[in-house]
């Protein structure tokens, strides 16, 4: 469903992604691991459509459509969701209002009827339970005054409400303590579905103890150097990244 071919991208004239090839099928969970500065976040941001990244070569197709030609909101309507590494605070914009606008824009795009306020509230309350998010958070400003852990929970809560077919989790585990990580991971596991692909970007193997990936990829210096199953993550944990780089160079 997602096909990345020879993707090159640069930020402020500096090439960060140097030919990524990756294919992600429906319902698969992929982990992309790599040291800091390897291009992990750039990859998620390019897929989600953030400004400031210039794609210099290659393509990203999603369900047969050219993803790179779409605006960020169009990608969202097509089912792409990004859980941010650093979710922004938007004081004054109600969390629930934002989600309702998002859900209804997507439904409209897909030719479905928009949800009314009552149906939507019911949906939201149900999904909040999934990540043990207190209902008081629903009526607050987006991420306003949330702790680091609460922000990450709010991201997964939003994923639950928006029901994407492709979820990119950008370092969703970083900055979380064990209890918070367990809650977030439980939420993600409950959201696994045959028609929903999940891409986790992380540099900690710890996350994979809680969310078991089908595939693990090592991203270093803008390229995927090695792919394998979850045992690769364990090997990275014990041996670090250097051997992968050496192996690739050889």
């Amino acid at each position, binding site marked *: 469903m997602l096909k990345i071919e020879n993707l090159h991208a640069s930020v402020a004239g500096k090439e960060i992604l140097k030919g990524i090839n990756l294919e992600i099928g429906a319902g698969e969970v992929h982990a992309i691991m790599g040291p800091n500065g390897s291009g992990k976040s750039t990859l998620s941001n390019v897929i*989600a*459509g*953030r*400004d400031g990244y210039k794609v210099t070569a290659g393509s990203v197709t999603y369900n047969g459509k050219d993803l790179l030609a779409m*605006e*960020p*909101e169009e*990608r*969202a*309507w097509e089912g792409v*969701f*990004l859980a*941010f590494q650093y*979710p*922004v605070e*938007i*004081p*004054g*914009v*109600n*969390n*629930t*209002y*934002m*989600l309702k*606008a*998002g*859900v209804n*824009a*997507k439904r409209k795009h897909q030719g479905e009827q928009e949800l009314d*306020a009552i149906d939507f509230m019911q949906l939201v309350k149900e999904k909040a339970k999934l990540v043990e998010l207190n209902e008081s958070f629903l*009526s*607050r*400003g*987006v991420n*306003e005054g949330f702790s680091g852990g609460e922000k990450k929970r709010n991201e997964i809560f*939003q994923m639950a409400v*928006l029901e994407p077919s492709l979820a990119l989790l950008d370092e969703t585990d970083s900055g979380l303590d064990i209890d918070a990580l367990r809650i977030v991971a439980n939420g993600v596991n409950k959201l696994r579905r045959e028609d929903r692909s999940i891409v986790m970007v992380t540099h900690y193997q710890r996350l994979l103890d809680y969310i078991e990936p089908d595939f693990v990829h090592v991203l270093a210096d803008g390229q995927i150097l090695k792919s394998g199953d979850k045992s690769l993550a364990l090997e990275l944990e014990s041996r670090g990244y250097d051997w992968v780089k050496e192996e690739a160079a050889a």
Partner: protein
Amino acid sequence: MSDLTLNIASLPGNVGVQAQRSQAADICARTGLPGKRDEDWKYTDISRLTATLGDAWWLTAPTAINSDATSLATIDDLDAYRLVFIAGQFQPEQSNLPDGVQLRPLSELLQNDTDDSAHCLFKLDESAPLFNGLLAANSALASDGLCACIGDGIKLDKPLYAVHVGNSTAHTLNGLMLGKGAEATLIEHFIGTDSDQAGLSNIATYLRLGDNAALTHYRLQLESDKQFHVGRVEVKQARDSRYTLHAVELGGSLSRADIVVNLAEPGASCALNGLFVASGRQHIDHHTRIDHNAPHCCSRENYRTVLDGRAHAVFNGKIVVAEGAVKTDSAQSNGNLLLSKHAEIDTKPELEIYNDDVKCAHGVTVGQLDKNQLFYLKSRGLSEDEARQLLTVAFADEILVAMDIKAVRSFIEKEAFSKLPNLGDLEGVLG
């Protein structure tokens, strides 16, 4: 300017008032309109007034407005005592006044030759902060307004809602006095009609708060596109009194307000909240001046402006802390959102502090919409327009949520953001 003196002979008021009027006319003739060399008018070119209305800019021309107040864009679901002024004249048949409170239109007071209660309103002090020729013209020519005295310990059960309608030139003079422990809410609402006519609304409002009195004051400027609006709000506060202003500037071609607060006795506090939403070539200017003249007084000031098109806004917030005003607690904040690269804001906090035992904070921000916030909203499926609108409303939210009358707040929310393109139904937006 000598014409102005001729004009006042036909105006109402007893001998004492007439004497004040001619004195004011002399001052007006002498000082004239403020010029650009005047520091307080550096960014506001009031010569636009004479360019549009002519040399006799102060001249009140009677206009025929047959509109019934009920058909106007007033705040409908507001439970209040209504005072309607059309082209500067009180409309008794469209108004309902509270019982048991001394409240009368100025025009009525001026009819009574033996009543001296309006005298003090006409008296001018040229040394007062931000004094200018426009205020002198107001004293010389005002013939109507709202005059009220809320007695000691009285809590007015409903707000006083003064609606001023018209595109003519009118000089309006209001006075509201609150006795010890009295409480009231005053809503001043300036509305234009759709006409192409330009005039000057020249409004002076004098407020006196007795010991421990509390006044909440909404000043809503929604004049029509061509109208000039100049206003002065002068507040004097006794011990432990509390004054809250919600100043909203949405309309008019050029609008200037001078807000002058005197925290005269210990424990008095004031909060000035301002919201400007301007587009096109609108020009909006607020000069505020807060004098901390006694110990333990507190002032809070929060102004937010949203500017689109070629709109130009000016904010000047001056705070003066007198020598004896120890334990002063003062904070001022001014945030500006420029939606267009042609919009302009001139903002200046000014602090003058004459003792060491004070806490004074101030901060100014000028910026565009935050790109990261925009991307976040778009990544959740909101369109570019929708995201921009939401963030704009959110920016103004701090001022809107401070408005404790829901009907006023919803009305302003709707009026403010209907000015900006593509805003849909905003029910439930605010966090």
